[in-house]
């Protein structure tokens, strides 16, 4: 069984947010839900200001606080390390959202189809997409995954259910990398089996020192950041649309 994990090289990241868009299209998330989020940060004062970038997917923690608090076992840790959400089972209590220190959980307050960006009722679009909403709807998300055969890819984004980054389980089970990894223009994000010394993240992690987010929480993330750090006092700039 692979031990999936990710490295994000902050020296290579340009903060372009291609990963955010790739994630949205791949996973059909609704407006203002960013399973992958890129902070654009700034610290210091002119002329000693410093700009930096911090992509933030789910950290897929080995000691995941969200898993511990889920009252119905909808949030669980797979054998390969992916922290998954079974949307058939989620009751939308949002305990995971409170427990997670990284803010990766997005709750579906409304029928997400209403948040799918465009007027999909437009009759001409309906002709082009056979009435599917959104037009880029990914059928893989309907599948059940893993030996446990559970619905964890976030399909339909049902109202009242919690969702978050799945490491693109639908791609990983096809031996593809998550959408954010594949699209990253500067190859800053690497994904693979951390037990395999020749996997991309293993190689990247050997090349430079790294750190994990909020290590003192003992959440034991599977995401390792490489290269430059940023100060806790960094301010966020250039924020995208936020949830209503």
């Amino acid at each position, binding site marked *: 069984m692979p031990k999936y994990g990710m490295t994000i090289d902050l020296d290579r990241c340009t903060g372009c947010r291609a990963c955010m868009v790739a994630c949205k299209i791949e996973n059909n998330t609704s407006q203002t839900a960013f399973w992958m989020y890129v902070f654009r940060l700034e610290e210091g004062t*002119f002329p000693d200001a410093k700009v930096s970038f911090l992509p933030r997917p789910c950290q897929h923690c080995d000691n995941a606080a969200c898993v511990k608090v889920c009252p119905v076992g909808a949030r669980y840790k797979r054998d390969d390390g992916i922290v998954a959400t079974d949307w058939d089972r989620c009751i939308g209590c949002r305990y995971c959202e409170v427990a997670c220190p990284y803010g990766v959980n997005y709750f579906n307050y409304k029928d997400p189809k209403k948040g799918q960006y465009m007027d999909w009722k437009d009759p001409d679009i309906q002709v082009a997409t056979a009435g599917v909403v959104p037009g880029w709807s990914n059928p893989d998300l*309907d599948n059940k995954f893993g030996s446990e055969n559970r619905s964890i890819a976030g399909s339909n984004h049902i109202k009242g*259910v919690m969702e978050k980054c799945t490491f693109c389980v639908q791609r990983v089970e096809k031996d593809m990398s998550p959408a954010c990894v594949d699209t990253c223009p500067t190859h800053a994000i690497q994904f693979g089996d951390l037990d395999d010394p020749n996997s991309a993240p293993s190689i990247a992690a050997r090349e430079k020192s790294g750190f994990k987010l909020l290590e003192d929480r003992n959440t034991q993330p599977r995401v390792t950041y490489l290269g430059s750090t940023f100060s806790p006092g960094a301010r966020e700039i250039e924020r995208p649309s936020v949830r209503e």
Partner: protein
Amino acid sequence: MMVLKVTRRDVLKVGAAAGALTAASSLFVGRMSTIRAVGAPKPDLQLTPVEEWVPTTCWIGKQDCGMLARKIDGRVVKFEGHPANPRNQGTLCPKGQGQIAALYDPNRVKTPLVRTNAKGVQGKFRSASWDEALGIVADRMNEVRKRDPRLLIWQKGRSKAKAFYDTAFVNASGATKLHHGAFCSDAGYRALEYTVGTHAVMNPDFKHTNYLISWGWNITNAGGNKTCWLTWNQQLGEAKKRGIKVTHIDPRQRPAGPHADEWVPIRPGTDLALALALCNLVIKSGTIDEPYLKEFTNSAYLVKEDGTYLRKGEGDEAKEQVWDQASIGPMDFGKYGNDPALTGEYTVDGEKVKPAYQMFKEHVAQYTAEWAADKCGVDVKQILQIAKDLADNANIGATHIVDGVEIPYRPVAIMTYHISQTELGFQQVRAQTMLMMLMGAMGAVGGTMSDFTWKIHKNFEGLDNISITDEPNIYLKNSKFYPINSNNSSVVAQVMTDPDPKANYGVDYTPEVCIIHMANPMTSFLSQKDIYDGYMKFKFVAVIDPWMSHTADLFADVVLPAATLEKYEGPISATDQYIGAQTLRVPPMDPLFESRGDIQIYLDLCEKAGILTGEGGYLDEINKKLKIDDANKIPIDRKPSGERELFDRWAKSEGYEKGVEFFETESVNITGPVSPTKRYGYVTEPPFGGAIHRLYGESLMGYQKQMKALGVEKIYYQDYTAFPTWRDLTMNSSPSEYDMNLISYHMIEFKQSRTSMISVLAELAPKQRADINPAKAKEMGFADGDEVIVESHNAVTGETRRITVPLHFTEALRPDTLAIPHHYGEIARHPNSTGQGDTPNALFFTGKGYTANTADQSFHVKVRLLKA
């Protein structure tokens, strides 16, 4: 908790319904056997949808990254980067990922439209058939072509198939072409064409460069020279691993972010001052490549006191003279065995002469580091550090072997591009080029490159031999105002609205018909007021665009709906500067709605206008431009079956046995490494294509003399000087209350008119903003997010312009500078674009003081902030 329990019950109900819906939708969407996860139910074979991966290319940026479209039952569901394309290596930027939302945008122009109301206000349109709409455009075109072909204008934005648009249509129709270069980087193009002969600006040889000056290069947000942002950043990433040092010269730090080692927060518009001071420092430090300067530049040419070269012989036989140190006397430049002097003063036949280099050395001596620090508003230590870094890294005299070829090795480079669009842009980029020339770094390994291969553009000679005319065309080509001319649509607008263009510009006609192809001058160009007034003068405007641009909304009589990326276009170079490659855009699906591919639109339009077939017709011009061989020539006596046939013939002519099918299946043809003898100027045959690089600009000085004689104002001729020469910026004579410099910039999310309405991109950058230093804002009593009025002032005319915009605090910006991004709100009446805010183009001015001497647009103006 009670609420949650209620929610849970509701969710259960919804969940049951949703489950049913899921089952129902799976009939349409299905589960694919190829991707079925472990344990998923076996699909009904009859319902198994078809998954296809179809190659195509991105359509938004300038480099057309390779893509694979994933299709499910004919529906595109995702674009992935094409792994074989050298330019993007399987990756895509946010725009590449997001354009699927452009494809399915229900707010695209779906059918041809014909205007039903007056121009200049929000348009009202009725749907029309293609036949009717094309007929109207063809009739109007032909009516003016018959009368006077100069009355027909064709305007493009970023051209994606130059052979089919810029060449074939323009030649077949006889239209005058307008383009976007004067609003992009053309002052840099003109500077390099004139100085070293290459048709591009400047970029590093990333595999070998050790010290890079990122001069206004927006590393994290926008493309540099020749390719998009994505390719350069991949190469920068590798160079950083190698240890390249990057100095970022820019009023904003945000463009470089963590990728610069040094940030030099220069005052906007003073880059020429810094470049001249660096030339001075480099000379003083002796970091000079004398053999290069003597052999490949005009540095040794002897210049007389009147500023012209000392020549021997008459007319075409006249030879420029150098001072031969062996024979101690003048000698023809380039004569075998001579060792020309670069310095000193000599007397020939009683006339005092100096080598051009000596003159340059004397010229830049006035530009000290301290002087530049004052002009540029930066710490003098930073300027000295740049000079030291250049000296430490230039490796004068060293060579490096690339693929078996020994080549001079000067691993110092500049990346500069859009920053060329300043009032002094042409001379500024010339000075930057000369800085690299002093060290022999142009075209050296690790040095400064200017194109993928070292080719000499016809403008190297052309710009040196301009015959100034009294009767220029509508963009004042070869005129006494802008002898070197980058074709600026705002200047066109000013001429068109002038009360007496004949008397004031020598232009005795007013164009009447304008075909605008994928350009949005009203929003993307400036100045908006001039564009509005000028474009109102057109009697007929046709727009080819997938969206209702503001230009179309205000001025179009007919809108022809173009497809987005669902069309054939090209041919497209896919080189990353090291690997040669070629690709085509092939449609991942049929054009949506009633849109058509742009080339198809030209085929149809030319047919209607009677200029499709026959010699000199559209098809003939395509054959000529694409050099299609006899066996595959497009028959010029009939309309081809469509775009695909044209590309099939081209591809077969190029040696692709399968024709266009090659690109439909393989996407990209990798032709192998670019040979060093094509790439590095020193080792092309002949070296540098035979061009003798112009440190000294004799012809520039000559143009100034002619301009003076023809009686134009100083503001036009003052920058036609043999050497780049600093002068204070016109905008600085605005009253002192206009105490901030406005600059503008690209964001990674948006590009031109193709993006701000894309939902998933608009979400990332929801609203226009004006970046400001917090201390400066607080001093004026403003808080982060406050709406303010930004008022610009024209130092020549006194005109003021205003927009209202919220402030965005950032410490990574000079306190005297306000920065507003481009490309918000480009599309009219689009739900994603409406309300995004105003473009900074509403604040900039064009014309005197705000265009360079090459008619290139400046993106600098003095502004003040007022309470909204």
